[in-house]
């Protein structure tokens, strides 16, 4: 198993289940530990468990991870990662949750699909729109999934590693190639 995006570099120690992984397990949600992200526990959750896991972590009084700091998308070498940084307004808990969609399972011309948490958490709404726009992860069940930073008719997803810029509209004077 490779760690994160460091290309093919093996983990020094196999990560062990931390307190939040145990908490999720006690409530019947499976997760697998990933190497800690600069000291913060990092869990991989299956996409079908994501909504339940986030709802549980947010609403349980003992954990209270009720601050969704950011939703990020990462185009890793083998996977598309949707990364959720969870903090709390009332205690010092921190947790990183990752949903990883293997590139091999994504059909050509389709986008990787992850369930949206925007219906249960407004903070995710714009972050998921941005990740859809820039990294090209489709959030299923999002109330209004359209591009947010790029123009609505933009083609492609700029933060993909294989993205190539379209015709340079500023320097190319040919009318046929003007976007």
């Amino acid at each position: 198993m490779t760690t994160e995006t460091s290309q093919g570099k093996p983990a020094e120690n196999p990560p062990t289940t931390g307190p939040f992984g145990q908490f999720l397990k006690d409530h019947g949600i499976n997760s697998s530990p990933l190497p800690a992200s600069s000291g913060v526990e990092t869990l991989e959750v299956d996409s079908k468990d994501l909504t339940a896991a986030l709802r549980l972590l947010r609403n349980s009084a003992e954990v209270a991870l009720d601050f969704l700091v950011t939703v990020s998308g990462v185009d890793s070498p083998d996977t598309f990662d949707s990364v959720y940084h969870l903090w709390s307004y009332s205690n010092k808990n921190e947790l990183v949750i990752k949903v990883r969609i293997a590139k091999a399972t994504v059909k050509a011309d389709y986008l990787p699909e992850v369930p949206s948490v925007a219906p249960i958490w407004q903070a995710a709404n714009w972050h998921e729109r941005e990740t859809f726009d820039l990294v090209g992860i489709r959030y299923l069940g999002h109330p209004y999934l359209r591009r947010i930073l790029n123009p609505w008719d933009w083609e492609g997803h700029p933060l993909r590693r294989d993205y190539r810029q379209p015709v340079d509209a500023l320097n190319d004077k040919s009318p046929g190639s003007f976007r």
Partner: protein
Amino acid sequence: MATEIKSDRLKTDEMIINMGPQHPATHGVLRLILKLDGEIVRHVEPVLGHLHRAQEWQGQNRTWFQYQALIDRVDYLSGMFTSWALARASEHVDGTEVPERAEYLRVLASELNRISSHLLWLGTYLIDLGALYGFPFYPFREREKILTFLEEISGQRMMFNYIRIGGVQRDPKADWFKRVEAFTKEFPERVNEYEAIVTENPIFLDRTTGVGVLPKSLAMEYGVTGPSLRASGINYDLRRFKPYSVYDKLKFDVITFDKDGDTRDRYLARVREMRQSNEIIKQVIDMIPQGDIMAKTKKQNAGLRVKAGEGFAAVESPRGVLGCYVVSNGSDKPYRFRWRNPSFSNLSVLPPLLIDRPIADVMAIFGSLDIILPDVDR
């Protein structure tokens, strides 16, 4: 509030109005699609991206050293904080120890920057409220002095590029500290001047009291941070909550309010924060130790590298939690940079605040959130 017209003979349609992107009060280019029923706002859709400069994409396509210089432009009013978030996240991944003097200088420069950012907000917010007379220039008088201080240490007035991975760029001269100290002594008197004009001004009170009330639950639902969150009564300041750098050695209290904050509370929160930052600066000048300002292991040239790994770090910027998620694969360029900009999350709470308010309140509420559009669009 408008009175409701009850007549079946008077048929009114909702009107759609585009506010912006060239609206002068949007501090950049924000377009709000407003659906109006008479003067009352019924639906809001913010349209972003007019200032999108692909900062995250540039992060993947520039070397670490080049990207450091670029990132101040994200939030042009508080460039220190974006640099600091980048530096902290990269140092986390890298395991770099930052010399203590550098940490103090970071706090000093950032708190100066925080005051200058709030001063600009204060001046322009009064313009947003219609105070087009001379007041906006009072805060700019002090801001000018702060920018001169920051220019002396960094060489630039706004795009500082002062905080670097591993430390800070250069050490100020001894008399610089003396001049900053003299400034901190006169500054509270200047804040008194602003407050004398604004805080109890009847027009200001009419425009702001009870306008744009942000309940705690709504703020937490949308991930609002910064003075806007603290004005709503949540004690959440990263400098105290998760002390980073040397903030745990400095004495200050988090400024919070005991009820759901309205526009005036957010004004008061920022004004008090300016005084608080001023006190922090005084302490830092007293406490700053001698020593190195840059970690010896970090080169400041194109050879700058960060070890493979990933990390997230955040700082408390004038607008809230400014986070930076870094993924490095050990090469000359970062693998992925992801920014968590406070303005982006704070702006997302705007539609619920504007619904059922008169259109005249739109800019009063929007301005009170202190949004910087380049920070939203990156």
